[in-house]
């Protein structure tokens, strides 16, 4: 079985801070991480590999430093890594990103299972997975919380708002994983050592044989008109006094607003 796992390197948004003076985002020095859902997808691929002797290829698109995330993936058990790195990809929206990733997957070829994280923490769109599945004309199962592989088939638990569905699909098939699918893992020392013996291939748009008229900022259907920091709410009122006074004041506030649900 051949598995391709798509990962993204993202800024650790828990560490993102706003400059209190300018109200803008401080990007310098913000550490980057492998997107958490993508990491769960990779760990799942490694679990499948242990059972089926699968080959795992990790694929990412990003600037040269995204190689770090791919090295981490190799240390966690991936067999080979490819980084799509070209100025032509810059500014791609999800449609254009799917064209780049999907194009590269066609070039890699010979895949049985494509694993993605459900969404990336910097954009939260959850779109690229399904878009790639459509591009490759293969079935998709999103929000996977459990994957069982059988011969030429997968059985997946798909999380819903009020439970889950059990869905079966033939392979090839694309699955997006949520964090509930497995426990996060850390690379072993042995894994890290091996990762540095493996090569991270860097592909340009031409090497990936991607249709250049469907990638990048200018070919993206959506464009950012402007971005702004959300207006700060005026300073709220601080309640002061003894604990008793404060508790009473809160309860009075609730009564005033007719939020007297239970009392």
């Amino acid at each position, binding site marked *: 079985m051949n598995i391709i796992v798509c990962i993204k390197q993202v800024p650790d948004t828990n560490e993102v801070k706003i400059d209190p003076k300018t109200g803008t985002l401080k990007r310098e020095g913000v550490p980057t991480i492998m997107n958490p859902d993508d990491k769960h997808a990779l760990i799942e691929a490694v679990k499948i590999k242990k059972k089926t002797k699968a080959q795992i290829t990790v694929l990412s698109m990003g600037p040269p430093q995204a190689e770090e995330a791919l090295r981490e993936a190799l240390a966690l058990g991936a067999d080979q890594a490819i980084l799509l790195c070209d100025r032509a990809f810059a500014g791609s929206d999800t449609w254009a990103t799917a064209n780049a990733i999907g194009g590269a997957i066609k070039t890699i070829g010979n895949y049985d299972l494509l694993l993605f994280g459900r969404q990336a923490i910097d954009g939260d769109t959850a779109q690229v997975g399904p*878009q790639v599945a*459509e591009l490759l004309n293969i079935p998709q199962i999103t929000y996977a919380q459990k994957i069982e592989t059988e011969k030429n088939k997968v059985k997946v638990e798909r999380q819903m708002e009020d*439970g889950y569905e059990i869905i079966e699909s033939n392979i090839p098939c694309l699955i997006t994983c949520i964090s509930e699918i497995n426990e996060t893992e850390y690379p072993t020392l042995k894994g890290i050592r091996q990762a540095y013996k493996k090569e991270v291939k860097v592909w340009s748009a031409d090497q990936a044989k991607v249709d250049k008229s469907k990638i990048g900022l200018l070919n993206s259907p959506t464009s950012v*008109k402007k971005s*702004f920091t959300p207006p700060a709410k005026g300073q*709220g*009122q601080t309640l002061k006094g003894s604990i008793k006074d404060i508790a009473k004041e809160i*309860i009075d506030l609730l009564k005033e607003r007719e939020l007297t*649900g*239970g009392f």
Partner: protein
Amino acid sequence: MPKVRISMSCPETQLNLGGIVLIKGNDFEEIPDLPEVQQAIDNGYLEVLEEKKEEKKQETTEGAEVLVFAEQRNNKISRVVLELLGKARELAEKLNVKTTAILLTDKSNNLSKELISYGADKVYIAESPLLKNYQTDLYTKVISEHIKETKPQIVLYGATHIGRDLAPRLAQRLNTGLTADCTGLDITEENLLLQTRPAFGGNLMAQILCQKHKPQMSTVRPGVMKMQDKDEDRKGEIIKLNPDISEKDMTTRIIDIIKETKKKVNLEEAEIIVSGGRGLGKKENFKLIEDLAKLLNAEIGSSRAAVDSGWVEKDHQVGQTGKTVRPKLYLCAGISGAIQHKAGMQSSDTIIAINKDPDAPIFQVADFCIVEDLFKVLPEMIESLKEGS
């Protein structure tokens, strides 16, 4: 035939116009349009009743509709659809086009009526036993064919587990843009859809356009748009589609659907949420939040830290990777207010925050700030609520 009467400026008390006698003081009468009549009008002897132009409601133009995907599960319309219909209607009125909905189901019952009463002018129904439950391939096929045929200019989806599976697949098939999790939708001067969404966990807001591709498509999280009042008297058109689907189109099979028996946490629809975070310190202390929530008949919310520490189940999590909520009251204790958390609760009507750190970012969005130890304030509130009841 004009309606006339003798004007005040006419010196005569009566006029004979070609055999028809009008008397001063009488109300408007309809008379033939004779030359004498015209002359009397010109002289100012007659007043003409201006035909009151009926305030005719401007007809909406056909086509280029604003379409809402009417997600149903177990033949119940998802609440977010009703929220979207209100927004769709507002956009459609600005564009002077119709608000429509597309419903895929095995039996439509009265669902189309419900969609109309919440704002749809037209409901397209695709009915087939194969469409009972959501299936990516079949739903994508039916909806993409409908979109290609009717060419709506805007399509809106709820950012549910189904909507987030379907919308991107459709966007790629239709080769158009899709903007996820919009918090604001409006129409620009150029009649384009202006989509506002948070980026970097709500640190930044981005305004996004899809200028050259149609339809312009967005997903919106449940609870973000306000639902409009139901109007049972609204009239609308129901159009049955003939979906061209068969078992051959199915690439995946649903083997089972499992409903989880635990009590459903309904943060999105809650009027009051009492939320706790890292400041509670340990699992046992989270009981303070539960007790207060019970007394206030509120739902229990939490920050990611409380979920990660295992004090509360993940479905209570409010924020970027949890739920977006907008209750009438959001009362939180021991939550510092990381941007991810604020992104999920800052549009609550009233926010009360309890935290002993005066610099906690949660106070930036709170209406009422209590810089105190939650272990003093919460028990006191619980006590006085118990006494009061």
